[in-house]
Each structure stands twice: as structure tokens, then as C-alpha cells.
């Protein structure tokens, strides 16, 4: 649930499921706007972290809501709205990552098929000046490490750590057994630690001392 909704507006609002039902049955634009208002921030955060770029995250958020409206007929009123929306947003992210990967592959083919090793590091070279990561060395390191993780590991980490979803809920969204989520999470944490571990050991460089003046 989006944060920051005032108590007063909560008194008058409907549940996500009721609003989505109105969107589905009556094309109710006001209900849709309500859903966008509640969910745009979590969806934008998820997309930004999945693709490692704030601008793309914003675009993917728009794409996710466009898909939500287009797929309103597929919504099952008995299902949780949040599960439906997370799934749509994740699929939008996966599609974008695949697009970028295909582009990189065709660019490499044009180069004579050399240096295929960097393919899994999508977004590594893209500096995102609008992200909080820019200008913060540790944050940039985290961004790069997350992008190096395979999508399935990044997904569980982002959903659990950043969005605070329970492991059971993640299993529901990804439509996999909870045990699989747990093993993916353990693998994700192990890989992430391997990527970040050198940073733990590296002593932080101390600021250079001013040279002492020579006393003659």
C-alpha cells in the first residue's frame, strides 16, 4: 500500500480490489486514477531497481499502468489486486531487460562477435545522473552489484528487501513454491555477498594528510 495517504482520504476511498472491479466493469477512470495514485511510487521504485535507471524506471511505471488498463479484462475479482499489478510491472521490466540484451547482442554481432562476456551486465555502463546512486560511491556499487545478479535473484531481493513483501507473497506473485523463493533468496544473498565482499575488506581510503611544513 502506498505510503502517505492521509487519514481523511482513507475514510472515503475504496479498496484496491473494489477500484479495480470498477475499472474492469465500468471503465471507471476515477477509480483507475485512484489506483495509480496509490501504487505509482512502489511500482516506480521496483522498476528503477530492476533496470538500474531512474528514467527507465519512470517509463516502465507508465508502461505497467498502461498494461494494467489494457489487461483489466484478465483481472480475477477473487485475486489480490497487488499480486496482479506486481506481476504486470515485473513482466514490463523483464521485457525491457530482454530488449536491451537483444540490442547489445546485435551490436556485438556487428562488431564481429567479440567480447560476449559483458552481456549479463546490462546497464553497467549507463550512468544514471538522476539516481541517488550517482555521487554516492556505495550506492553506485550496490546498483551495479544488483544489476549483475540474474533477474530471478534480483527480483526476490528487490521485492523482499526494498518493497518489504513477505516470502509467501513473493511466491504468489512469481507463481512458484515458497521453497523455491527461499532457495532463490539464499542464492541471491550468496551471490550479492560475493560481489560486495571485496568492499567490506577494502579499508576506506583516509583523506590525504596535509604535508607538514619543513622547519628549517
Amino acid at each position, binding site marked *: 500500500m502506498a505510503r502517505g495517504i492521509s487519514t*481523511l482520504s482513507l475514510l472515503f476511498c475504496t479498496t484496491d480490489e473494489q477500484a479495480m472491479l470498477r475499472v474492469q466493469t465500468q471503465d471507471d477512470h476515477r477509480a483507475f486514477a485512484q489506483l495509480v495514485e496509490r501504487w505509482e511510487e512502489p511500482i516506480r521504485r521496483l522498476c528503477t531497481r530492476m533496470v538500474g535507471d531512474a528514467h527507465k*524506471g519512470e517509463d516502465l511505471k507508465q508502461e505497467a499502468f498502461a498494461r494494467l488498463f489494457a489487461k483489466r479484462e484478465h483481472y480475477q475479482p477473487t485475486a489480490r489486486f497487488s499480486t496482479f499489478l506486481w506481476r504486470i510491472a515485473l513482466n514490463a521490466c523483464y521485457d525491457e531487460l530482454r530488449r536491451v540484451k537483444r540490442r547489445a547482442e546485435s551490436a556485438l554481432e556487428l562488431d564481429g562477435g567479440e567480447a560476449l562476456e559483458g552481456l549479463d551486465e546490462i546497464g553497467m555502463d549507463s550512468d544514471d545522473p538522476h539516481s541517488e546512486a550517482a555521487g*554516492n560511491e556505495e550506492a553506485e556499487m550496490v546498483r551495479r552489484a544488483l544489476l549483475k545478479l540474474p533477474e530471478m535473484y534480483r527480483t526476490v531481493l528487490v521485492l523482499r*528487501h526494498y518493497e518489504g513483501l513477505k516470502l509467501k507473497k513473493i511466491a504468489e506473485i512469481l507463481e512458484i513454491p515458497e521453497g523455491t523463493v527461499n*532457495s532463490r533468496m539464499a542464492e541471491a544473498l550468496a551471490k*550479492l555477498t560475493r560481489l560486495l565482499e571485496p568492499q*567490506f575488506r577494502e579499508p576506506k581510503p583516509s583523506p590525504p594528510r596535509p604535508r607538514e611544513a619543513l622547519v628549517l
Partner: protein
Amino acid sequence: MKHPNRDEWAPYVFGEATGVEARRLEAHLESCAECAAEVAGWRRSLKMLDSWSVPATPRARNVITPVFRWAVAAAVVLAAGVAAGRMTAPDAKAMRADVEASVKSAVTAEFQQALARSEARLAAAAEENSRDLLRTFSETMEGAREEDKQAMLAFVQEQQRQVDARMIALRRDMETLAVTADQEFRQAKFTMTQLAARGNE
């Protein structure tokens, strides 16, 4: 030493393991340096993830919400005022009867006045209408009479002109006749004179 399965650690690290599970895993960590080091590494990584924050976008709702709050506050004050007014109001039935009577008489008087005004306006309008009709009729009649007069005058003038022409022609004929008669009379006189002279001879 038998280590727990890897997937058992995920719920534990995120605080979702049941009490029994959590105690079992904690006991293992106390006795297994290898697992303890791994879990500690995971925790450090998770802590480091917090350094990457995605700032929230500014939202228009921040501008709208105070307006909405003021609107609700105004509605509450209005509702309280109406409620207080209703509670402190005098006997509603008597007041309603008084108001009804006064309204009825006022409405009747007003209606009668309006009726009288309408009648007067109607009469004035009818009179004005008749006057207009009369004026139009007389103007029309006057116009027709004038036309007749003009026509008659033209007719008389035409007749006069014809009479004058005939008189002139008659006079010319008379004069011609007179001149002819005079010549013939003179001729006769001359002839008689000649005849008389011849007789004397």
C-alpha cells in the same frame, strides 16, 4: 556437522521463521563458524543495500490535500451550525403555521395587486389599439378622398380644354364665313353698280 539446508536461512534472515525454527537455526549458528560467517556476510550485504535509495517524486496531492482538509473542516462547521440551530429552534409547528398564514396573505395580496395591474395594462393596451385603428382608418379615407378630388379636377380640366378647342375651331369657321360673305357682298355691290351705270347709259 550437519548444516541446515540453504533455503532454510532465508526466512530466518528476514525474520519470518517460526519461533521453533529460529531457535534451532540460532543454536546452529552458535556452534558453526562457517554458517555464522555466511549469514553475517548476508546481513552486511542487506545493510549495504539500504545505501541505494530511490527518491520519491513530488506529488500534486500535497497541494490538493490542504484544500481538501479545509473543505472538510468547513463542512463540519456548517453541519455543527445547522445542528445547533435545529436544537435551539422554537416550536416548529406554531412557527410553521404563523409563517404559512403570513405567507398566504402576502401571496394573496401580491396576487391581487398583480391581477389589477394586469387588467389596467390590458385596458390601456386595448384603448391604444382602438385609437390606432381609428387613426389608420381615417388616414386611409383621407387619402382616398384626396385621390378622388385629384381625379375629378383632372377630368374637369380635360373637358374644359376640349370645349376651348371646339370654340376656337368654331370661331375660326365663323370668321372664314364672314370674310367670304363680305367678299361676295362686295362683289355683288360692284356688279349692281356696274349694272346701274349701264342702265343710265
